[in-house]
Structures are given as structure tokens and as C-alpha cells.
């Protein structure tokens, strides 16, 4: 083959060097089948070749962690013989191509990762990013993605209890759909993909294999008939009904101890499941391609291997148990066929048309390249400096800006989104979506909390802070409900790793995640990396690349001993006193206020003091546990005004308000700095008027122990929102706006 002529398409997304490496390893140039397998297994998606060196630095042990990254999902001890299993995964590109099916299969895929481990999924979360709210395509993406998520999760009977929806121009050409699932299992009922024994039967279960999701790979292959392509579709179509049956069948087979090892077929379907199972078990396999149930007759071997048809699993079972296993899958009306055998030699031998078709070395395929790609501090960061507030005149009418902020699509209620998800199924949802963290009870009063999110704008402005903030912010939400942050999963969405500036963002953001996770003692037990979230665009004669902001998203699990003690952030009663717990900096860099008031958010956000953060959160939790507080909320996007306003209007039973007076002079702040600075290391808490009299005793002791300040700033009122005689709004009006934007 003439090397200079080899197009990148021909290489299936592999680099020339990688192609040459493969030829060297094989001792010949790869044929279509081999190239298909390599391109899948050596892809960024499957091999983590650009991110591995950084992911290795994350804390993965300690606390209640039983199994960290490396399996389909991580496992945390929940006590009393139970474990929780969770992971988050991206499905960005498929969701951009076909938002309904893409998001649906994203949810289906992550749930499979969870029940592959032997856990019954008990809750879903998702983190969604769309283009600017006014972009003509945004309503379409929003409605289809939400429909797709609901379609799959609702049908599976797994409640979707939280998440986030963010709009930003940077996602106009690359939406993000990150899906999180948590499941519960018995400690001794966890299943792994690494347990295959020589002589085990390899069993294929679930839906038949079709042409779904076979992308560039076969496009470039000689075997691909372009004319046929017109009729073909490579979009993966989700079938939650079949997945529900697959879930029940798998759990039943596990319960009956019919499964030795199991791996879901996710990205690169049969290829990654077979090679990974073999590799992790240190074994090899015979795979009989003639046995694979096909939906489309005449699929070629490479097509079978690369198909991403949904709702399929690969199982290793003991020979004697095969019939019993078949009986279980038969009960649920699912395919269950013998597709091979586990062998000692670490190779996979493929049979096709009853003959040995190909033999591939497991190590060669699985040990893909690992890169430490060049990094370079992005040019734009030179311009990102702290806000010089004196250069900005305080706007005439801060009330108008306050209303703009509370009705901004990124702040306003996402009720119209989450009411399309069944969040009450499972009879476990104690605190539903719409507050901060979701609270679920398990047995009796024991429970856990979930939260997911991240702030890409801040990550863009300071990748380290953004990464750390994603973790602390989830932790704040969990702590404010009275929970203990326990462990996290991370979904890292970035543009191309081949751009040194992007790689620098990635490295710094991971460093931020790591620092916060270490300090807060929340190990990373699973996660996912999604690179290449960028699109080449043409604007007249100009071509440019539209890139997303670096978007690390965290999913966090917290524990609570008694869900009856869980706190919600909303105000409870008129007359309660409002306090500010923590420190208040008033830096406006990166805030929504700077954007809306001055059209300029490109300033450096305040730094995070992680040691202080830990003390602050522990202090808050102590106050909650002792029963001193009636509500607690962190100060996040939109600042203290937004936090107060939300607390006032989200009480499901009544409309409340507040009157707040803060001595800004004494704190050296401008009024807008007080009202709108974001992600302060502070919480707004309320107390019963009577109770606060006991400050001297209980509360003061706790404050002193942690060295945290508590300042009274006002009181809960009915229907008015007043701050320092400057903000003067009506709760009813604000509520109406807040709930009607999206």
C-alpha cells in the first residue's frame, strides 16, 4: 500500500504511527477484520489512551470504597451487607446525531453497566448541556433528549431523581448528555468481568445483532457496499422493554448462581466485551460467529464484531449450568446462545462458516497505546484576570437584573424537565428533584443522597478551580441536606486531546478534581472520558472549530443515617431567622451577573480554600445533626440573591419571602458583590427564632470547634423579597417567572 495515499478515513481513525505499530505487532498489514477490531479497541473511547496517565492520579481508595475504577462500575459499602454500585457515562455524539435515540441508549447503556455488576438500578441522574437557549435548534434538542431519557428510564422502572440542565453557546454544535445510574446489591452478590475459568461456556444473551452503531469503521472497509448504505442506518435504537427483561433475567440468573462472569456489550459491542473479559480474566476465548443471533442477514464478521446493538450481554457460565441459564432467559423471552468457550491460551479464535477465521492475541489488542500528549497553557488564560470592580458602575436598577438572573434559563426551575421523568417509582424518593440533592431511603430510615453537576464556565476560566468546584459543589448540596459525601464518579467532557491547550485544560481540571476529592475524602470509583467534543464549522469563507468549554461533571453519593433528618433548602416558616454560615468574598469573576449586567464574564473566579471547605461542611453537618437548622442552602450560581429567592419560592406548601440586611460596608463589599457573587464558601441557613436563643450553648460550641462564623442577616417573611433597601420584589411574581421559563 502506498503510505502517502493512505487517507485518515482508510485508517479508521487510527494515526499513521498506530497503523504502523499494528502492522509490526501483527507481522503484516491488518486486513479489514483486524483493522476493525484495532480501530475500536485502540480508539480514544475504549483505550483512554490520552487520559490514562492523568486518571491514574485520582484517589480511588479509602472510605467505604470496595471496588474502584476498572470494572463496569465502582462499588461502595452501604453497611448491613448491602453495597451501592454507580457510574456516569457520556453519550454526547450519538445524542447530537439523533437526540431521542442517543439519549435513550445512553441511559440504557449506563443501566447495563450497573446491573452487569449484579446490582439492581435504583436511581438515575443526568447532566445535560445544550446550546444557547435562544439558538433555533435548542428547543428541539431539549425536548428530544428529555423525552429519550424519560422513555428509557421510565419504562425500566428506575426513578430519575436529579441532574442538571445547562444552556451555553459553547454547546451549540456539541450537546452533552451524561447519564448516571446507581444500583444496590448484596455485598456477596457482586459480579465481575474478570472471573472467567478455562472451560466455561461463553454465552451471548439479549437482543439480536444488527447494523446499529457501525460507523466510520465499516464505511472505510472494502467489505462495505456503499449502495446498500442508503437503506442502512447506523443509529442505535433503544428498546427499554427488552432491557427490562434483560435486567430481570440477569438478576435471576445471578441469584441462581448460574453466572461466573459477565460483561455488557457497550461501545464496540462484541469486540470490547470479549477481549476485555478475556484480558481481565487472563484467559482466551473461542468465539463462534456463526452462533451470533443476527437481525440483519448476511452481516460480515467485522460488522458483527463492531455492532453496537443495544440490550446485549456476554456471559461466562459453567458447562453444567448452561441449560439452567437458558431456561431463565427463555422465561423472559430472550436469546441465550452458546457462542464459544473460555480457553487457556490468551488469544481469541474466531470461527466463521464453521472454520477458524482469525486468531488474535488478546494482549496485543487490549494493550493499546498510551500517550502523554503535549500540553500548553491556553493563550486566552492570559487575559483572564481578577475583576477590577471599580471599572464597572453599579447598574441603576438592580431589581431588574435580579429578575433577569432568577429567570435565566440556567437558574430557572427545570420542573418541566424532571416531571417528564418518573421520580416516584421505587417508593424510595424522600426528597424529589427540584431542591438540591435527592434523598432516597433504602430500608427503614437508612438512606443515601445523590447529586450531579459541574460548572464549565468556571472550568474554562480556571480549569483547576472548575474541576475542584465540581466536587465541592456536589458535596455542598449533599452536606446541606445533612448527608456525608462518600464517593464520586466523574464524566470528563473535553474537545480534542490532540490540541495541547485542551490537554492542558484536561490535566488541570483533573488536578482540581483530584485535590478536592482528596480533601473531602470522596474517592473516584468510576467515570468516563469524552474527548473530541468539537465540530468544524464554516462561516462564509472562514472555517473554525467550535469547541465546548472543558466540562468535568461529577456524580456524588452521600450517606445519611436517618432520612427523617434530611433537610431541604427551602424556607419553612415565616419568622424564622436567616443566617450566613461561612466566609463571604464577594468576587464576581465568571458570574452570571457580570454577563448579564456588563456582557462580560471573562474574569478569574475566586480561588477555593479546600481546607476551609472541609471545616465549613463538617460544621454545617454538625449543626444539622443536632437539629439546630430548619433549612440550609449553598450559594451557587446567581449568588446570594438567587439562593434566598429559591429558598423562598420552592416550599411546596406556601409562598415565602425574606427581609435581609447585611452590613456591606463593614465587610468592604459593594452591594452587587454581596447580591450576586457565586460559589461562595458559605451557606444560608435558617433557624427557629426561639431556638437561636440557645446559640450560646450548642451552636457556639460547634462554630468554635470548626472555626466557622455565623452571622444573622435577616428573617423569613411572607411574599416580600427585600435586601438592604435595594432589592424589593414580590415573591409571587418571582415564583411565576421562575417556573415558567423552560
Amino acid at each position: 500500500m502506498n503510505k502517502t495515499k493512505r487517507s485518515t478515513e482508510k485508517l479508521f481513525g487510527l494515526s499513521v504511527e498506530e497503523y504502523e505499530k499494528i502492522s509490526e505487532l501483527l507481522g503484516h498489514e491488518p486486513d479489514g477484520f483486524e483493522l476493525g477490531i484495532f480501530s475500536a479497541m485502540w480508539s480514544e473511547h475504549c483505550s483512554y489512551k490520552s487520559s490514562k496517565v492523568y486518571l491514574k492520579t485520582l484517589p480511588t481508595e479509602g472510605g467505604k470504597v470496595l471496588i474502584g475504577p476498572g470494572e463496569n462500575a465502582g462499588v461502595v459499602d452501604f453497611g448491613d451487607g448491602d453495597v451501592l454500585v454507580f457510574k456516569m457515562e457520556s453519550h454526547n455524539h450519538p445524542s447530537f446525531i439523533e437526540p431521542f435515540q442517543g439519549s435513550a441508549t445512553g441511559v440504557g447503556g449506563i443501566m447495563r453497566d450497573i446491573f452487569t455488576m449484579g446490582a439492581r438500578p435504583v436511581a438515575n441522574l443526568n447532566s445535560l448541556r445544550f446550546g444557547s437557549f435562544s439558538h433555533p435548534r435548542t428547543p428541539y434538542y431539549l425536548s428530544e433528549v428529555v423525552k429519550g431519557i424519560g422513555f428509557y428510564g421510565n419504562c425500566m422502572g428506575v426513578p430519575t431523581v436529579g441532574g442538571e440542565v445547562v444552556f451555553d453557546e459553547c454547546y451549540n454544535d456539541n450537546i452533552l448528555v451524561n447519564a448516571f445510574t446507581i444500583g444496590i446489591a448484596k455485598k456477596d452478590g457482586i459480579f465481575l468481568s474478570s472471573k472467567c475459568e478455562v472451560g466455561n461456556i461463553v454465552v451471548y444473551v439479549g437482543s439480536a445483532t444488527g447494523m446499529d452503531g457501525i460507523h466510520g469503521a465499516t464505511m472505510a472497509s472494502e467489505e462495505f457496499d456503499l449502495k446498500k448504505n442508503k437503506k442502512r442506518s447506523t443509529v442505535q435504537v433503544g428498546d427499554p422493554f427488552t432491557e427490562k427483561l434483560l435486567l430481570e433475567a440477569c438478576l435471576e440468573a445471578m441469584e441462581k448462581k448460574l453466572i461466573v462472569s459477565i460483561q455488557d456489550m457497550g461501545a464496540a459491542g462484541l469486540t470490547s466485551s470479549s477481549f476485555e473479559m478475556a484480558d481481565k480474566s487472563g484467559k482466551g476465548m473461542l468465539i463462534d460467529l456463526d452462533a451470533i443471533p443476527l437481525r440483519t442477514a448476511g452481516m460480515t464478521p467485522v460488522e458483527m464484531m463492531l455492532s453496537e446493538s443495544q440490550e446485549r450481554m456476554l456471559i461466562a457460565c459453567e458447562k453444567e449450568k448452561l441449560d439452567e441459564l437458558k431456561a431463565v432467559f427463555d422465561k423472559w423471552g430472550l436469546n441465550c446462545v452458546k457462542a464459544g468457550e473460555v480457553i487457556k491460551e490468551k488469544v481469541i479464535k474466531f470461527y466463521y462458516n464453521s472454520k477458524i477465521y482469525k486468531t488474535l492475541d488478546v494482549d496485543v489488542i487490549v494493550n493499546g497505546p498510551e500517550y502523554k500528549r503535549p500540553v500548553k497553557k491556553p493563550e486566552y488564560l492570559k487575559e483572564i484576570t481578577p475583576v477590577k470592580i471599580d471599572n464597572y458602575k453599579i447598574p441603576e436598577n438592580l431589581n431588574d437584573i435580579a429578575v433577569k438572573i432568577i429567570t435565566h434559563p440556567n437558574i430557572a426551575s427545570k420542573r418541566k424537565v424532571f416531571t417528564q421523568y418518573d421520580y416516584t417509582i421505587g417508593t424510595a424518593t424522600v426528597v424529589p428533584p427540584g431542591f438540591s440533592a435527592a434523598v432516597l431511603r433504602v430500608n427503614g430510615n437508612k438512606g443515601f443522597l445523590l447529586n450531579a453537576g459541574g460548572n464549565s464556565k468556571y472550568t474554562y476560566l480556571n480549569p483547576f478551580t472548575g474541576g475542584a468546584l465540581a466536587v465541592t459543589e456536589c458535596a455542598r448540596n449533599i452536606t446541606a441536606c445533612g448527608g456525608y459525601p462518600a464517593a464520586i464518579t466523574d464524566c470528563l467532557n473535553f474537545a480534542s486531546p490532540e490540541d495541547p491547550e485542551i490537554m492542558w485544560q484536561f490535566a488541570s481540571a483533573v488536578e482540581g478534581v483530584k485535590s478536592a476529592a482528596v480533601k473531602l475524602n470522596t474517592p473516584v470509583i468510576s467515570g468516563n472520558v469524552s474527548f473530541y467534543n468539537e465540530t468544524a464549522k464554516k462561516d462564509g469563507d472562514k472555517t473554525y472549530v467550535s469547541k465546548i468549554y472543558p466540562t468535568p461533571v461529577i456524580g456524588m453519593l452521600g450517606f445519611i443515617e436517618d432520612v427523617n433528618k434530611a433537610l431541604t433548602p427551602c424556607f419553612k416558616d415565616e419568622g424564622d431567622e436567616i443566617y450566613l454560615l461561612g466566609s463571604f468574598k464577594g468576587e464576581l469573576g465568571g458570574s452570571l451577573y457580570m454577563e448579564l449586567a456588563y456582557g462580560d464574564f471573562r474574569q478569574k473566579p475566586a480561588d477555593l480554600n479546600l481546607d476551609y471547605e472541609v471545616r465549613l461542611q463538617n460544621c454545617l453537618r454538625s449543626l444539622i445533626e443536632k437539629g439546630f437548622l430548619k433549612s440550609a442552602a449553598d450559594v451557587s450560581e446567581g449568588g446570594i440573591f438567587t439562593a434566598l429567592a429559591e429558598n423562598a419560592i420552592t416550599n411546596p406548601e406556601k409562598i415565602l419571602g425574606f427581609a435581609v440586611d447585611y452590613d456591606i460596608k463593614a465587610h468592604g463589599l459593594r452591594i452587587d458583590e454581596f447580591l450576586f457573587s457565586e460559589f461562595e464558601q458559605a451557606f444560608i441557613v435558617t433557624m427557629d427564632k426561639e431556638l437561636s436563643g440557645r446559640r450560646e450553648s450548642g451552636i457556639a460550641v460547634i462554630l468554635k470547634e470548626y472555626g466557622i462564623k455565623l452571622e444573622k442577616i435577616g428573617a423569613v417573611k411572607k411574599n416580600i423579597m427585600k435586601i438592604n433597601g435595594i432589592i424589593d420584589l414580590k415573591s409571587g411574581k418571582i415564583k411565576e417567572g421562575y417556573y415558567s421559563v423552560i
Partner: protein
Amino acid sequence: MTKKAFIKVMLKEEVLDPQGKAVLSVLKSSGYNNVKDVRVGKYIEIDMEDGKSGSLENEAEEISEKVLSNPLIEEFSIEIK
């Protein structure tokens, strides 16, 4: 003059049709054993006012492609009466 456009939207042949699959399995278990395959699609009737002649066909085509079907996974056919 009002005309009717009848538009049939079906999943492409090689796309998984979960609905068809479920109906098939129920038909089989209800004893309709000679049923071999089921595909479920959409049928849309549109009442349209005919403006300039010829434009109606184009318009129905455009509507089918842009609104009624998803060209990635579906194909459609139009009949005008």
C-alpha cells in the same frame, strides 16, 4: 381546493423495531403462528389547500422529510388524492 396527502413513515429495514418485535411476540403467543414478522410505522393524513399547481407535492415531500420523519432511521412514501 383542499387535497389530502397520505404519508406513510416506516423505520428503515435494518433499524430495530421494538414495537413490531413486541407485537410479533404477543401474536405468536396468542396462537397466530403463521405470522412471521411485524413492522409498526406511522400513517399521517394531511389536509392541504392547493396553491399553485405542483407545489403541493413538493410541500408534502418537504414536510415529510423535515417534520414527519427522521431520515436517519425512517423512510417515507407519499400519496396525494
